[in-house]
């Protein structure tokens, strides 16, 4: 117990808009979690290997470029291949509602859109990580 929740916040692909990623990273850190931020221009492979190496409980992907389907799929599959499918994958950015069912079927957790409060994200990560730990 009492191990701090470890979260990887990642910016996949070419999109350089990192305001949201940084705000969320800071909010999770302030809430007592250990946060690793990848920086920009990460491929799915880089994100998966960082997640495994850092032994994180959750990976948050920030995508505002419209390339979300591609990257969420690759990261989820990559984690599965590495036997790390217990890691929670969630995200934020500009993701149209009609893409949500497909992301859910991939096993992606919640996607937070513009206007989400940081408290909501913090509460979600806490709860979802605890739930996954209980299932293990």
């Amino acid at each position, binding site marked *: 117990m009492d191990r701090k929740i470890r979260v990887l916040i990642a910016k996949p*692909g*070419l*999109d*350089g*808009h*990192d*305001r949201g990623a*940084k*705000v969320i*990273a*800071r*909010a999770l*850190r302030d809430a007592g979690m250990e*946060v690793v*931020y*990848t*920086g*920009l221009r990460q*491929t799915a492979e880089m994100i998966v290997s960082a997640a495994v190496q850092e032994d994180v409980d959750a990976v948050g992907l920030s995508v505002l*470029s*419209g*390339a979300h*389907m*591609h*990257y969420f799929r690759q990261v989820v599959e990559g984690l599965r291949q590495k036997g790390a499918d217990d890691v929670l994958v969630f995200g934020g950015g*500009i993701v*149209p*509602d009609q893409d949500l069912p497909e992301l859910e079927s991939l096993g992606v957790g919640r996607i937070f*859109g*513009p*206007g989400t*409060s*940081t*408290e909501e994200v913090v509460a979600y990560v806490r709860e979802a990580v605890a739930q996954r730990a209980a299932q293990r």
Partner: protein
Amino acid sequence: MKPKSRWLAEEYAEATRALPERDVPFETLSGIPVEPVYTHEDLEGFDPERDLGYPGSFPYTRGVRASMYRGRLWTMRMFAGFGTAEQTNERFKKLLAAGQTGLSTAFDLPTLMGYDSDHPMALGEVGKCGVAVSSLADMEVLFDGIDPERVTTSMTINSPANAIWAMYLAMAERRGADLSKVGGTIQNDILKEFIAQKEYIFPPEPSVRLVIDTFEWGPKHAPRFNFVSVSGYHIREAGATAAQELAFTLADGIHYVRKALERGLDIDEFAPRISFFFNVHNDFFEEIAKFRAARRIWARQMRDVFGAKDPRSWMLRTHAQTAGVSLTAQQPLVNVARVAIQALAAVLGGTQSLHTDSFDEALALPTEEAATLALRTQQVIAHETGVTNTVDPLAGSYYLESLTNEMERRALEYFERIDELGGVEAAIEEGFFAREIGDASWKYQREVDEKRRIVVGVNEYVQEFPEVPIQLVDPSVVEVQKERLARVRRERDQAKAQAALAELEAAAKEGRNTMPAFMACAHAYCTLGEQMDVLRKVFGVYQEPVLI
């Protein structure tokens, strides 16, 4: 009339005893405290002749043209681009038919990052947040049926700006256009990419050198083009305050001027073609003050610090765009109101051109209907509100003039701090801008989370709203792109293409101006990726320090 301090202590105090002030921060979005009332006492030392002048004359606080919108309205220029060149061409033509007066091109991320559509890094991104342009062939389709001598085109492109500009000019030349009559703007502001938007490829120094190549080449070969649009927009969107946006943008502009002078260029040859691009956000008066302060600071810097003689060098001409970051995904139709108010501020601030965001942009790229409504918003301001009837109607307002002074003061303070750090490039590498912007965006988010700032529909007046239709990008885009790219590579004159790329490499290595080589590459149908690969090899690629 009694002094303001007495009025505050007597009448105002009495009024607030009876009805206390609301429990909200009375300050601008930049955190400038706002007083209950402004009077002539707040403008002590203010000299209208020195600080305002007439519109169209130094220091241009009141606008760069004497007649402003009585002579010509601002250019209504909607930023558009998605999918294939064919799809964007169709949207361009519809916007022109709807009464838009200039074009503005959004490129997709692979293009912005200098990758061809078939590069592995482009997977999943082709045509998503702009149009894909990998060679002259795409540019020819993109502007098919649009006369480059008649319509001015703005292109939001930075790291690969030289190559994309060359493709546009090559397209115009092949249609028989006279380049001295072809006008438009390339954004080409790499400094704000390092500071805010992060679409850089090469390290700061060679990146700035490429920009200065356009300063040198542009006035001689494409004199009606603004070869740079020094941009605060993205700095603001990344979380900066209005005061930071103003300061950092002008600091970037000054940095380019210094670099151009170091190259031995004549200030009055290049400075008249430097243009700007500001955000226009929710805080109505602060935004207007920002535009007015920007013009005054630039004019004084150019004339008094750099010794420019031509009045056109002193004038800060600007494009404006309403604040994408202020749009909410919740109750999206409410954004129509935000955009209208922001657009009004840009007009009262004296902008030369304007893009109004569509109400659905927090959800996806705008639909045609939403983009048309945004354009109509500008037309309502232009033709129905009467604000265009007189120039700079808010001049002399105690509040607005004090705010303009305060914005100027804060900008000059930032200039000093940046100079102490060794200039803009040094400040970038030291992480100064990233920290300043990160702290400001964090502060804003806290205020919204804690409801000290109300965002209608987000943290107050929350309510379910009917969904709005959104624009989707057809996934077959990438196939169309790949096919055209394969055809270009197959059918072009290979020897000519290889020679052009070799010359680009030589020019880059030897420190010669790269623009002639980019023009040759464009005409030879070299792809964007090929050209950027040559420069990646010569200049290396940049990676920023990771900071939270």
